[in-house]
């Protein structure tokens, strides 16, 4: 049975599971879109600069939508949810908050393009599996947003998949860097794949399929790609720097939040 916004507000258990899932979706997109925006002007060539910033803009749009669904459930205002929450309240995967590399976008950015490609390819493919599942979500507004996100995601996945395959097939140095970045991402991948402490409620309310089902679908999706480039998928993934779904985060997130909320916090009442 599909539920409307009013149904969700009336059922506190349902609302609690839904809220948890929406925070994960929103916070994931939000922080990765921010990391993407830090690449502006620094991508390997100008066409990539155009493409990556366009993808980041779409992704920020998706975050805004998920925050809007939270606002509709009377959890808080979109702008406050995005800008005014402490790191410990954030539900994003730690993988997505990690810095792009040494330096900052203003001072000596030594950003790691291999890491950017691998992280984005993994994230976008996991997001694709989730969005496909949420097209059938029991929460009607979420299923409608999923249909919308899916159409934009098509282009994102095509983009990152192309980069991922091409760089692993480029010269030895590129392959080495890609392998290194892939290992780093696998070490945090469980933190992205988990639906957090309320995962059972989230799937039993049919908001999205179960964590393990989604994980197996993702492996099935990327297996042929990994085989084609002769990379192996490890037996086990990791959560090396903590479980972001529990509010465990690194200093990287703290610093990012300070930067991105600086202007907003000067005058939260300002009209944009």
């Amino acid at each position, binding site marked *: 049975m599909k539920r409307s916004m009013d149904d969700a507000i009336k059922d506190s258990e349902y609302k609690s599971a839904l809220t948890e899932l929406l925070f994960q979706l929103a916070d994931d997109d939000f922080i990765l879109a921010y990391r993407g925006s830090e690449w502006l002007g620094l991508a390997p060539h100008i*066409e990539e600069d*155009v493409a990556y910033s366009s993808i980041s803009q779409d*992704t920020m*749009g998706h975050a805004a939508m998920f925050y809007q669904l939270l606002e509709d459930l009377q959890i808080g205002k979109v702008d406050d949810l995005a800008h005014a929450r402490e790191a410990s309240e954030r539900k994003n995967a730690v993988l997505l908050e990690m810095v792009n590399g040494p330096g900052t976008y203003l001072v000596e950015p030594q950003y790691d393009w291999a890491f950017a490609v691998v992280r984005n390819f993994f994230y976008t493919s996991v997001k694709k599996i989730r969005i496909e599942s949420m097209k059938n979500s029991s929460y009607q507004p979420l299923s409608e947003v999923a249909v919308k996100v899916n*159409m934009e995601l098509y282009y994102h996945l095509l983009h990152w998949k192309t980069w991922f395959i091409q760089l692993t097939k480029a010269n030895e140095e590129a392959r080495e860097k890609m392998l290194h970045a892939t290992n780093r991402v696998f070490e945090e991948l469980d933190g992205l794949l988990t639906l957090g402490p309320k995962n059972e409620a989230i799937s039993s309310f049919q908001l999205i399929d179960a964590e393990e089902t989604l994980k197996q679908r993702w492996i099935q999706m990327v297996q042929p790609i990994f085989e084609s480039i002769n990379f192996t998928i490890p037996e086990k993934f990791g959560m090396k720097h903590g479980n972001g779904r529990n509010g465990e985060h690194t200093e990287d997130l703290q610093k990012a939040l300070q930067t991105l909320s600086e202007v907003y916090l000067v005058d939260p009442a300002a009209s944009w």
Partner: protein
Amino acid sequence: MDLKNEVMKALHLVKDPEIDSISVVDLGMIESVETKENSVSIQLLPTFMGCPALDIIKNNVVKVLSQIKEIEQVDVQFVYHPPWTSDRITEDGRRALKEFGIAPPPIQLDETGEWHVDCPYCESTYTTIENLFGPTACRSILYCKSCKNPFEAMKPISTLM
């Protein structure tokens, strides 16, 4: 003229802030228009969700409709169902895009999801895609090998993707 017709006429005046030859009506963004005695409510479909023009469009719709004498109350909302797809652009809209130098979105996609558009300047089919992404979320960058012009195309967006 009845109120609804007047509203539709006014909505034709609201253009895409980034492509000023095409109206929100011809872009296929208007899902529904309901008029009562002195109020109107409009449901708009967002094109791309991160598009910064959306709020400007919403405000412009309010502004234009508020100028109609009989109307005292305007309610404009974005809805996500049905999703906006590029086949909602009208024939007039496709012409307007072309006038602006933007190839209208292809109507058909290959089974592989690949697509092709002709040059909006010289009609040549001898074109290549330079970048699927462009200066705005809804556009791609292409090049015409016949007339040697770079041009943009409206990205096809479909639920089949």
